[in-house]
Every structure is written in structure tokens, then in C-alpha cells.
């Protein structure tokens, strides 16, 4: 495991594509997936833009060939689509029990899309009762496990917007400790009225396309997505002669311990998370070719993260971008889709642009990468930060 933990598969659904290839194509061609909300009614429709996946729950149920009386919510459906792709891409046979396989998923809203739809309707509609238990965040993972035919270790992490990074981290630890041979890791979150209104009350939603790291940024676009990676032990890779897409070489989690929702100005938590990841990877900041920033485009996050990047990298901050202007901020899934994007950067020696950037921030001289850049990429650092001061960093390295 000297290179880290092997990643042998990945799957993704996001506002810029329902497959890895579609996502790569959108990233290369600067095509964002930001629109008005189409899938549900909300009074915020004319006030905000989102990264929405243009598949209804019914369309996903059809794609997944689920029975009509299934009780899956949107979070579970998105997750099942992405997890299945990851399994196919790693060429895993879920039927054979040769290896101890687990699922570490993550979500922040769980079954909220269904709960908010039927909250007051259950008493008079017995046919909806099957959804009552689906509200629980962990049930989305159960549904995904059932769909992919997994019987084994299943758990769910919820640390707001860093959730999927932490799921990836836990998966790596489970393999390193010898408790699992293979683990499906990532996250899924559906858009809901609940989160849309929640972020709206915090006044951090942008009424236009979000502009990460821009002086005139006005807030974030919420999004929905799911993404999963397959992590496998060196033994499996060797024995099965598995193709390795990339290695997870470092990771770190730290707490800002500053405020329930806001980040500290000097980005203490982010700084500590990056430091831990470097220590574990045995890499130094100058080894990093690309930083996939958290970059939500809120005034607070980008300032705090910018300071943290300067603290870690000094004057030599590597090429960096936030891909949230493509997908919106997909909450618990964010670190999952950005892990996929980090791996795509490694595989294709390409750095994806930070869309909508015009004016540098006044507080420091940080210029995100604004055009597609072809250059050798050997190590990518990806940041994800969440409510509760939760700060996570992952480092991916070329296979």
C-alpha cells in the first residue's frame, strides 16, 4: 500500500452527465448543468439556479428496473445509479463471496424529497406508508446495498458537505486495517425544498450562475448528484490483475471549531485537514499539480479556503479550480463527484476550468485556472468542507 489505496472503479450522476464519460465531456467543454428547478414546485424557482439532474424519480425507477411498489427516495435512486456504474467499471461480480465487500455511503438529506412531499398525507394514503421508513438517512444506503446485491458491512456518514470525503476516508481505513478487501465509497444527495429553503435562509444562494473565487461572488448554486469509487486491497489488485484508475494516497479530517456554519477567516480547519493529508501521503505541497477546491462561491468559504491554500502552499499555489459552477454544490455528494473529477484530471492530464471567474478577490492574489489546461497531472488535492466545521482533504495520485 505504499502508493495508497487502489481505486479500481467509479460511477457518477450529476447535472453535467449521467456517466463518467458525459461528465468528462462537459468538463472539457465548459458546459455547466445549472438551470431553474424543474423537478418540483418551489416558490424559489425564479430566485435561484440549481444543478439539477433532469431525470424524474419515475424515470430512474424505470432505468433501474425497480418493482412499482419500491420505497426508494431520490437520494437512494441517484445513489443506486452511480454505485452500479462504479461496480460495472471495476468489473466486480457481486454474486461471488470471494472478498469481504462493504459500502460506505453518505448523505445529508436522506429521504427528504419524499418526506416533504407526503409529510401530511400519510394518514389518508395507506399506499404511501412504505415511504415512512425511507426518511431515515441510513435507509438510502440499505436500498443501494439491496440494489447492487451487497450483503456485508454497510454504513452511512453524514457530516454535511464533507460527507463523501469522509466516506472515502473510512473506506480506506477499513481496507488498511484488514477488515475489508473491497469497499464502495461515496455519497448521494437529492435536491429538496428543505435544503433549498435552508440555504436560502442563510442568504448564501446566488440568484445567478455561481462564481467561485471571484470578488463579486454572490453565493452558491445548490445541486444534486451521486458518485461512488471502488477501493480495493493490494491483494485483490495483484491477484485479479486489476486495472488501477488512481490511488488514494492521502486524506485528513479536522474541525474548524469556530462556528456551526461559518468557516474561520484563516481557514484553520482546512489548513489542518490539508496538513494531515500531506503527512499521510508522504507528499509535500510542491508535489500537487492541481487543487480541486471546495470553492462554493459563498463569500465566506472562498475567503477562508483561499487563506488556507496560501497557508499551505505559500506563494506557489498550484493550478486550482472549483468545479461547483458546473454541478452546483451537491452537499454530501460533492466530495464524491469531485473525487471522480480529480481522477479524471490524473487520467487525462488535464485541469478543468473554474467557470464564471472575472475579478480576482481583493484579499489575496489567487487566480483560479479559467481555461482547460493540458499538463502532466500526477497528484491532485481535493477539499471539502461542511457545516459543523467539518474539513476534509483527499489526495489522489496517478496510477
Amino acid at each position, binding site marked *: 500500500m505504499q502508493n495508497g489505496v487502489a481505486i479500481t472503479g467509479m460511477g457518477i450522476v450529476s447535472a453535467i452527465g449521467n456517466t463518467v464519460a458525459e461528465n468528462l465531456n462537459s468538463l472539457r467543454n465548459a458546459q455547466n448543468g445549472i438551470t431553474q428547478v424543474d423537478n418540483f414546485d418551489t*416558490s*424559489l424557482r425564479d430566485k435561484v439556479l440549481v444543478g439539477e439532474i433532469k431525470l424524474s424519480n419515475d424515470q430512474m425507477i424505470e432505468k433501474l428496473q425497480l418493482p412499482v411498489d419500491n420505497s426508494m427516495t431520490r437520494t437512494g435512486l441517484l445513489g443506486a445509479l452511480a454505485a452500479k456504474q462504479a461496480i460495472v467499471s471495476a468489473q466486480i461480480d457481486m454474486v461471488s463471496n470471494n472478498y469481504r465487500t462493504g*459500502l460506505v455511503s453518505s448523505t*445529508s438529506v436522506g429521504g*427528504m424529497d419524499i*418526506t*416533504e412531499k407526503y*409529510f401530511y398525507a400519510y*394518514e389518508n394514503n395507506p399506499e404511501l*406508508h412504505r415511504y*415512512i*421508513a425511507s*426518511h*431515515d*438517512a*441510513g*435507509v438510502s*444506503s*440499505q436500498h443501494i*446495498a439491496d440494489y447492487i446485491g*451487497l*450483503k*456485508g*458491512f*454497510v*454504513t*452511512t*456518514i*453524514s*457530516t*454535511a458537505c464533507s460527507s463523501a470525503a*469522509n466516506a472515502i476516508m*473510512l473506506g480506506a*481505513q*477499513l481496507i*488498511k*486495517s484488514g*477488515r475489508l478487501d473491497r469497499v464502495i465509497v461515496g455519497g448521494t444527495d437529492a435536491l429538496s*425544498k*428543505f435544503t433549498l*429553503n*435552508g440555504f*436560502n*435562509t*442563510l442568504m448564501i444562494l446566488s440568484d445567478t450562475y455561481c462564481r467561485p473565487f471571484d470578488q463579486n461572488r454572490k453565493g452558491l448554486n445548490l445541486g444534486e448528484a451521486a458518485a461512488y469509487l471502488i477501493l480495493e486491497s493490494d491483494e485483490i489488485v495483484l491477484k485479479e490483475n486489476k486495472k488501477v484508475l488512481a490511488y488514494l494516497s492521502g486524506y485528513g*479530517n*479536522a*474541525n474548524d*471549531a*469556530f*462556528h*456551526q*456554519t461559518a468557516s474561520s477567516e484563516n481557514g484553520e*480547519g482546512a489548513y*489542518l485537514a490539508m496538513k494531515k493529508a500531506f503527512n499521510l501521503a508522504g507528499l509535500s505541497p510542491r508535489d500537487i499539480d492541481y487543487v480541486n477546491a471546495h470553492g462554493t462561491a459563498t463569500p465566506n468559504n472562498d475567503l477562508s479556503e483561499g487563506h488556507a491554500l496560501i497557508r499551505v502552499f505559500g506563494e506557489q499555489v498550484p493550478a486550482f479550480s472549483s468545479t461547483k459552477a458546473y454541478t452546483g454544490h451537491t452537499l454530501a455528494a460533492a466530495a464524491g463527484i469531485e473525487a471522480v473529477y480529480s481522477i479524471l484530471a490524473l487520467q487525462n492530464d488535464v485541469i478543468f476550468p473554474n467557470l464564471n471567474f472575472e475579478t480576482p478577490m481583493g484579499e489575496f492574489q489567487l487566480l483560479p485556472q479559467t481555461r482547460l489546461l493540458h499538463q502532466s497531472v500526477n497528484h491532485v488535492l481535493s477539499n471539502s468542507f*461542511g*457545516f*459543523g*466545521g*467539518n474539513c476534509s482533504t483527499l489526495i489522489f495520485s496517478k496510477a
Partner: protein
Amino acid sequence: MKNPCYINGIGAVNAQGIWNDDPFAHITEISNPLTMAMQPSYKELIPPAMIRRMSKGIKMGIFASQQALDEAAMDQVDAIITGTGLGCLEDSEKFLKNVLDNDEQFLTPTSFIQSTHNTVGAQIALRLGCKSYNFTYVNGATSFESALLDALMQIESKEANQVLVGGIDEIAGRTFALKQLVHEVKADGAVEKLKDSQSPGVNFGEGGTFFALNTEKRENTYAQILEVSILNKLATEEVVDFVTSFLTRNQLTLADVSAVVIGNNGDLKYDIYYTTFCTLFANQPQIFYKHLVGQSDVASAFGLAAAAFVLKKQIIPKTIQWNAIKLSELKYVLIYNQYLGKDHSLTLLRHVET
């Protein structure tokens, strides 16, 4: 060499009150479908303005975590790891009702901010000024065991020497009315103790249980945590294999287990899992606890507290003994939990000579 993981402090808030030196002596067995926790006074721990704003889950978490730290004489930790099945339900319901009832108008952020599942872990970190590892697990009946396994790995791998780990769940109105609607919770008006359960569903409770874990043992160490195993689903006929293969992996036989802690909750349909489990340990004392705190996704954290208590004291209080087998020396205690036939866990503890 892996570092050992000792339980050096426990804290709890639940239907019986708070954790104390003799928590199983004066108990009241619960018989209501929904039994709230007996809330302690928070004014020594939390500023008054915050007490009003915080949900009971956050407060119970803060109280129980501080109690655990105090008992272990720890004031700083290298990791804070929590588990919660349903999360911060009070705030979550409050915000959702406001969204739905007022057609997305006139909303304030406080309940949304506090609705995220990791609020308790975050608030503990804030008050301790703790910038270290902070994870929250939300996986039904294995939410706490996931947190515990993470804690064990943090300690084994030497990432952390001192860890605060706990489970929190709170009862809130609408969610539980819906659980009653589908008979997951017994109907209003039912008065049935766990062993006398006759109607469908179970009695629910709420609470917070925390543990201060350390690589160093102390004079008042409760027990050592050896291993935690989690499985998403299991047929009743597979219970035996689940248990025996777990013990084999830990180089133990069934006979090595001195006592077991079972998660029976009076569920007519699914307590069969525990019955099957207990057939393997017919000659050992069996301990139960959900008649004291009720079912919740993290009730099993209190089961761990019970196991730790009996290992330390080398006595099994009558109030929690399920069968009539007299104990001999307690060395290994095995905890088994599941809920609705899903999210099975085994936790293995060992007695520590101090």
C-alpha cells in the same frame, strides 16, 4: 502492534436519568410507547441563551460527553465520533413544518442550521475547542457501532490516543406519529413492559450515551473494547454462523464468553433473532437493557455501558439479568444488537485488571 482501546469514562442521559455509580439499582421499567429522557439541569454546562436554542439531543450529547470526559479525567481528545439514527429531529421537523405550513415564506435559519446530523459532534468540538477528527454516522441501528468501530480503528492505528465516542437520538412528534401509524412504535395507550409485550411494535426511548476511550488504562477503567462487527442483513438461520465466525476471528470459542448483552425490545416479530442468539449461550448470564431506556437507533450504546459496568464491577444487577444463570468470573462479554432484522452488530469486550 495495535494500541489497546480502553473505556475510561461513561456518560448518559436517558429515561432513567443520568449515568451514576450505581445506574441499575433504582430503576423504573418503561411501559409507554414513547418514553422521554429525564433531562438533567444543563445550566452548569451550557449558557442560558444557548440552552433555550438547543434541541434536547444536542443538550443530552453535551451533557453525556462531558460526564464521560470527567470520569476519565480527560479534557481534550484526538477524535469526536458520534452516531445518530434519526439525527436532530426536533429542528429538522420544525424547519420542515415551517417550509410546508408557510409556503416557503418567513423562515429563519436556526432550526435548519441545527438540523444537520453532525450538529451534536460539532457542538461538542466547539465547546471543547477541539480541532481534531470529527465524524458522524447515520446508519439506523448500527449508527453507534459504526462510530465505535471508527474509534477503535483510530486508536489501533495510533491516529488517536483519546477518543470521545457516543450515540444520540431524540423523539420528535410527527416522525413518531408516523412510526406509530406503521406500527413500528406501539400505539398510544398501550401499557406493556418489554417482557409482557403483546401488541405490534416496540416502546421507544431517547437519550445520549458517550464513552471516553483511551490507549492507557487507569484505576477506574471499565473494560477493553476488542472488536466490533457490522452486517446489513442476516436471516435468523445465519445468526449462529455470524456469531461463531466472529468469535473464531477473535480466537475465542462460545465457551470463552462469560456473559452476553442482548437488544431484546419486545418486538414480537424480530426478537426471534435474540432468542436464536441466546441458544448459543444458554449456560451464560444474559443481560438486557432496553426495558430501561427503550428502543432507539443508538440504544445499543447503553447496552455497551451496561456491559462495561458489569465487567468493571464483576456483578450483574438483578434488574438487567434476562435469565437465571449465576455468573462466575466475567472475562469476555459479547453484545448483540439488530433492529427489524437489519443492521446487526457484535461488540466484544474484555475485563481489565487495574
